[in-house]
């Protein structure tokens, strides 16, 4: 019996029904990772000892007849910008090559309390800055559906691990699409929760007004199980809120289809696949209405001012003094900064730090940063207005199919355009669930279901219906 292609629900039933043990389940995944990780390079590091010791505890609990949570014994992969006590945590960067996490992120503490088993840390674009996992300092992750193509990014390692059955489910982070776009490229489910729904304590910050941790999983139901475990207010993250997830009892919905997301530039095959799914959904008794998000065209420009501004500040702490890569040559402390940062950060991270530094610098602050924050208000108001008349909004995740490795690496602007449909959601702080909606040959196409603030229940329900 192959133990590695179960959903969380199926694995849970197998564990409590004593068809297999948590140690056997973890062992099956660890063996498979050992054999197959080289092909796609989803994992940067494997935590066999931790996984085995966690699985053993779950087996003991089950043997004693305890009622274990759904996540107990489920083998999970963790993006390498989320800290697991005692494990290396590189954020895909050379500047953190030797950094060992001194504590558990809040989401990890929660997963451990639920008995989830941590298999290892997954590859990512350096400091989550990228849309293909190609900016990792440690090598390129390949898309398991077609290994000549990228898995998307920045949570490409987590998405590839889920798609290749190298974990039961995974955690990623999403600042401008970094969970949804790789989920879409690898044909799995990914949730960017409402801003504030999940604590970021212990997640290396990229752009703090946009970052959210969320699940990648094989099914909508599995994503919901993981989200249920990690969400909630945390005193260690002042932006997290103790919200009550809205309850949903309805089964038919009014779906907004934004005209600005079906425009020239989108791959016609992607558009057709998304529209086909939407028309199917309409035939099942749901209503489709065309809506407008008029400021959508400014989202990408707005994002690259706000995200890089915050990044230039957040990444100032990597200075070669307290931890991480340190180049002690030269004269005085100034040279340690210049050399450790110049040599420790990769090209894309340096590019974004430079951009953020420029737009915040004297004389440019009002023209760029303040203007971008005003446009951000307009983008959020677009969503507020749309949600007065619809339950959710459906749009493509990516304008293209997964692209070839190396295809966009020489043109940063072209790479940034990969995020054109995902970025507004982070700017507005609303939740969005990416689900597969078809295939062109071997390549998956995905759509995203965007919800009201803290209304994950509705988008999960719609996602579940669409998946069936």
């Amino acid at each position: 019996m192959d133990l590695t292609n179960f959903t969380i629900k199926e694995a849970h039933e197998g564990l409590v029904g004593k068809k297999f043990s948590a140690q056997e389940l973890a062992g099956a995944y660890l063996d498979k990772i050992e054999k197959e990780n080289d092909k796609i390079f989803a994992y940067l590091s494997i935590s066999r000892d931790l996984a085995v010791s966690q699985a053993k505890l779950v087996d003991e609990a089950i043997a004693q007849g305890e009622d274990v949570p759904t996540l107990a014994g489920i083998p999970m992969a963790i993006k390498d910008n989320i800290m697991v006590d005692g494990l290396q945590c590189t954020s895909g960067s050379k500047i953190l090559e030797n950094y060992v996490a001194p504590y558990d992120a809040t989401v990890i503490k929660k997963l451990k309390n639920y008995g989830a088993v941590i298999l290892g840390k997954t590859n990512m674009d350096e400091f989550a800055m990228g849309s293909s996992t190609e900016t990792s300092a440690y090598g390129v992750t390949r898309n398991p559906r077609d290994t000549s193509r990228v898995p998307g990014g920045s949570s490409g390692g987590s998405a590839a691990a889920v798609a290749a059955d190298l974990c039961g489910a995974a955690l990623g982070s999403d600042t401008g699409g970094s969970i949804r776009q790789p989920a879409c490229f690898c044909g799995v489910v990914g949730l960017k929760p409402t801003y504030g729904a999940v604590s970021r304590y212990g997640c290396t910050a990229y752009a703090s007004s946009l970052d959210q941790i969320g699940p990648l999983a094989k099914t909508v139901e599995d994503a919901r199980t993981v989200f249920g475990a990690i969400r909630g207010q945390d005193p260690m993250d002042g932006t997290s809120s103790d919200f009550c997830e809205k309850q949903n009892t309805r089964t038919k919905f009014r779906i907004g289809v934004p005209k600005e997301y079906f425009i020239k530039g989108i791959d016609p095959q992607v558009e057709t696949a998304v529209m086909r799914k939407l028309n199917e959904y309409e035939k099942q008794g749901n209503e489709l209405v065309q809506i407008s998000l008029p400021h959508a065209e400014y989202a990408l420009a707005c994002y690259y001012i706000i995200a890089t501004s915050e990044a230039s500040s957040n990444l100032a702490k990597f200075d070669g003094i307290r931890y991480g890569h340190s180049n002690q040559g030269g004269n005085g402390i100034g040279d340690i900064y210049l050399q450790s940062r110049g040599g420790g950060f990769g090209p894309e991270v340096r590019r974004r730090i430079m951009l953020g530094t420029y737009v915040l610098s004297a004389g440019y602050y009002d023209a760029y940063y303040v203007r971008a924050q005003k446009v951000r208000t307009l983008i959020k108001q677009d969503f507020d207005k749309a949600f007065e008349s619809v339950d959710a909004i459906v749009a493509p995740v990516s304008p293209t199919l997964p692209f070839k490795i190396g295809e966009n690496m020489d043109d940063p602007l072209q790479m940034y355009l990969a995020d054109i449909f995902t970025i507004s959601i982070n700017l507005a702080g609303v939740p969005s669930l990416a689900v597969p909606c078809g295939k062109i040959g071997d390549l998956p196409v995905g759509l995203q279901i965007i919800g009201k603030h803290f209304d994950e229940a509705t988008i999960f329900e719609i996602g579940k219906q669409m998946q069936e």
Partner: protein
Amino acid sequence: MLSKEETEHIAKLARLGLSEAEIAKYQKDLSAILGYIDKLKEADIEGVKPFTHSIDVANVLRQDVKTERTKEELEKLRSQIPQTKDGYLKVKSIF
């Protein structure tokens, strides 16, 4: 178009030690990205307030009290410092 001098100045502000070739590359890249970002000038922002929060949370505070850390916890942090002397963090001359 950013000048070479402006690009060098940004690298200095950002504390990034870059080679001549890298400066030339970023001068080109940043100019292209800034050209794209100029799109924002088309947006009508008359009377619009800058964005601050996507959800309404305000004044999340905690007591300003010291929390005790164990020796082991401190050692985890200390062991990652690149240069130490007698248990202290050591840096080069700051002038």
